[in-house]
């Protein structure tokens, strides 16, 4: 028995469907309250960036300024950190960020096909966001679920079925997410 069927119960319906209510980051927004809990933490800027990503799904320009002040860094340094990591972005993202794994084990199991199907269903290319602001599609590297290859994640939750039948699963799943 492989030790690996733990996650399969956390699929589609249960978790992420109701989880997402992203806030709109506007010009006048004060990001300090979000940043505050991490200000005293050494190296806390990464955690603060995570908090912003959770709330807004991107790092708004004004938040970069607030971060710089809170952590006594230059804005350039803050941007340097924010742009280094692939799970941080300063570009607006959709409510659902879908990432398709392209590392070797998934690549061998037709990750390209998963991406093409998602592109077709959503009408966008990898790296883009749908006009209604619902979905962002991108490539990612191994998410540590290779036994279920090909793997894609929605807001970081892996979609893994014992038999990953993505061609039937994806349209149904997107339909469900659209209704949210």
């Amino acid at each position: 028995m492989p030790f690996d069927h733990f996650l399969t119960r956390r699929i589609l319906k249960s978790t992420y469907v109701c989880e997402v209510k992203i806030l709109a980051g506007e010009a006048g927004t004060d990001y300090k309250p979000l940043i505050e809990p991490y200000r005293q933490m050494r190296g806390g800027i990464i955690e603060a960036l995570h908090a912003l990503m959770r709330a807004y799904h991107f790092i708004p320009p004004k938040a970069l300024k607030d971060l710089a002040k809170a952590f006594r860094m230059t804005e350039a340094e803050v941007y340097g950190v924010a742009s280094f990591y692939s799970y941080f972005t300063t570009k607006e993202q959709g409510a659902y960020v879908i990432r398709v794994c392209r590392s070797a084990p998934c690549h061998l199991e037709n990750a390209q096909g998963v991406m093409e199907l998602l592109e077709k269903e959503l009408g966008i290319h990898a790296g883009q966001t749908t006009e209604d602001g619902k979905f962002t599609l991108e490539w990612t590297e191994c998410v540590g679920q290779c036994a279920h290859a090909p793997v894609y994640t929605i807001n970081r939750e892996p979609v893994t079925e014992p038999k990953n039948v993505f061609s039937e699963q994806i349209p149904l799943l997107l339909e469900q997410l659209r209704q949210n």
Partner: protein
Amino acid sequence: MNILLDGRPEEALRIHAYMLRGGYQGLKRARQTPPQQVIEEIKSSGLRGRGGAGFPTGLKLSFIPQQEDTPRYIICNLDEGEPGTYKDRTLCEHVPHKLVEGLAICAYAIQATQAFIYCRAEYPYLVDVLKQAINQAKQENLLENLDIELRMGAGAYVCGEESALIESIEGHRGNPRFKPPYPAGQGLWQQPTVVLNVETLCNVPFILREGADAFSSVGTPDYPGTKLITLNGDVEHRGCFEVTTGTPIKEIIETVGGGVRQGRALKAIQVGGSSGGFLKASQIDTPLDFAALQKAGGSLGSGAILVLDETRDMVDLCFNIADFYRKESCGKCLPCREGCYRGWQIIRKIQQHQANQQDVENLFLLLDVMKETALCGLGQSFYLPIQSCITLFEEEFQAKLRTEVGGGERIS
């Protein structure tokens, strides 16, 4: 033999069930002896790092200066970015208390009161599991003055490299540092620091509970114990399994993995994830052992085993691996930043039937330079998968080359 994956997964967060199985007895035993002796015990067990480099764990702990007045840190590396690897996730999901106990023992050994677990961004669902396990241990008064803090990564393969990981916890870009100084002298916030892999730490409770000899009598003398492997690719049963070191890889694929999928013939395996070397089907009698795999031209690495059947296109796979390196290179040092890109370019050229023999020679030269001069293990390890893939499957690459003279320039 199960040293790591014992107990039932549904009991992962039942601390008393874990204690009934002998859990936290290793920690108790450790605290009854002087820290120095705990390090000696780990040393004589022969335990070597499971994160890829295989460095002797006891020796690493002994590098931390003994005087108590300077702060020192212990970090658990849960970055697990190596493609094809999910053993550390499996451990956290199934035996989180083993990790907490191992961390507490090693923290005691180096007299650290602050520990960090650096968890990759891809595993947000582990946060709750680990936090619960830590809280349970606290409530049972098992951690004494040790504080374990969870820090999240944010999607960068290079942050698995220990000095880059330290930079990331400090709140910087995850660029590796020049060494020396090594983390044992100047690590996190310039203080003595030891970074250990999840699987390494999970072996420690057994060593302290059952004794170093019980551990070193399992598996091969040079790399004792068991190893978690993650079987991927064209096998009947994929997944994470615990295997005694020294088991022939052939046996692993056939018994644990149920053989090659759809009864096809085996073409090659790649052990150690995308930074590991390829082995041909004729080499799969090689035992799962650090030295033996190195001798065969491969590596044990993280323990991921990618099985490839006869239908697989090696040029395409080689390109995929180069693409991974090109994207994950952090850009701090030139050999890696430029080398991964140029290497990728040449392999793409081969794939598109545009390259000639000179291009291949240039690629090999480039790989040599990167292996010798790259700042960290990322750039240095570009060599192994690419070189072994092209050498072992030369015909496939040759078949895509252009034969007319001219074209690619010599770069030496």
